[in-house]
């Protein structure tokens, strides 16, 4: 049976690759240090495959039909999408092998657990997958199964729902009949309001409070206190990307290590990196 060997989460804001050097130097240093540590922890866990939970920014699905979750089942993932390459400062496409057998298993096994997942054989990639892969899997050496959620088109899903889906997917991944060592990565957040009236806003108080809840490691308390309303108040249509972190949290027990936090107005996003130690 497959095994979960690492759980990590980080911000995926386009500024991290597109205009990195515009943030204060100490924020740049903190981001580089923390992503290097994430990468070290990832490599030390010797994963055969990364399952990355992110969100689709209206790239793969039009607004009239936005599935709750989508799995990329292709044999190879190529990104970023043309529309995103200039914005992300990634003129050259990256290519990362997929893991179609595991990806298709996730879709079909979830059906048996009453969870509907859409899938795409040719998924397009925006900042959500491209930015974390740039830092954590730059050579594309570790195969990838991307899983995107909708957290920007209303109704925005609740953290409780993300956690519930996380617990189902945890059971699904662990039921995979192969020896694969699987790393899970959540991407998105922290506070930001992409394209809203508070486009430049970073809610440092919310972010530190949220990270403290992760450090305390009491999942029930986090789900009780970190409501969707609080996320939306900290930055509408963006902060709820933290649902991907909460989904990843369902693969863990106990506290997370907060590797860095930067209230990065220059990147227009509360920016953070965390790693969990104990896996469920």
């Amino acid at each position, binding site marked *: 049976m497959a095994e979960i060997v690492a759980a990590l989460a980080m911000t995926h804001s*386009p*500024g991290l690759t*597109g*205009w990195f050097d*515009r943030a*204060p130097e*100490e924020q740049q240093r903190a981001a580089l240090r923390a992503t290097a540590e994430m990468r070290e922890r990832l490599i030390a866990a010797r994963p055969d495959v990364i399952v990355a939970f992110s969100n689709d*920014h*209206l*790239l793969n699905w*039009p*607004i*009239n039909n936005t599935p709750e979750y989508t799995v990329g089942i292709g044999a190879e993932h190529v990104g970023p*999408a*043309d*529309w995103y390459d*200039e*914005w992300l*400062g990634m003129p050259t496409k990256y290519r990362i092998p997929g893991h179609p057998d595991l990806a298709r298993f996730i879709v079909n096994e979830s059906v048996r657990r009453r969870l509907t997942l859409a899938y795409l054989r040719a998924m*397009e990639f925006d900042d959500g997958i491209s930015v974390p892969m740039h830092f954590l899997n730059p050579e594309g050496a570790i195969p990838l199964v991307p899983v995107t959620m909708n957290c*920007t*088109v*209303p109704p*925005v899903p609740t953290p409780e729902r993300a956690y519930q889906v996380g617990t189902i997917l945890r059971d699904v991944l662990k039921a995979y009949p192969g020896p694969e060592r699987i790393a899970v990565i959540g991407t998105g957040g922290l506070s930001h*309001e*992409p*394209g*809203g*009236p*508070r*486009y*430049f*806003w*970073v809610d*440092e108080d919310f972010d530190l409070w949220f990270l403290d809840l992760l450090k305390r490691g009491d999942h029930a308390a986090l789900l009780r206190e970190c409501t969707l*309303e609080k996320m*939306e*108040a900290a*930055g*509408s*249509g963006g902060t709820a990307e933290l649902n991907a972190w909460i989904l990843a949290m369902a693969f863990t027990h106990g506290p997370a290590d907060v590797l860095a936090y930067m*209230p990065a*107005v*220059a990147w*227009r996003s509360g920016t953070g990196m965390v790693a969990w130690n104990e896996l469920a």
Partner: protein
Amino acid sequence: MGHVERTDKTLPLNEMMFYVRRDARLRERWNTDLESIAREFGLSREEYEALRDKDVRRLHELGVHQYYVPQILRLFYGASMNTNSHPALEAYKRAYPEETAQAFALVERLERRTRS
């Protein structure tokens, strides 16, 4: 709930943006032939004018998904080096001066904190 809840999911402009972002031929026509793209996708006159005028507030009021508004501006102004002084972001500063001032106050607080 938050600002994103103001999205009109059935607005033709929201449908149009999906296709423009995925189709290089539509993007090539953006700066020369916008009115006919708008017509092809069934935009109302109001939608087209808000788009043409790069009117951030009006686009929000019409129910354009907030995530699409900066993308619209990048189609006009270009997407590279999308820093806080890029023309797309300058348009936001003009549209939402109070919110912008609040956000940049944090930058000043951080600078003071770093110095002290």
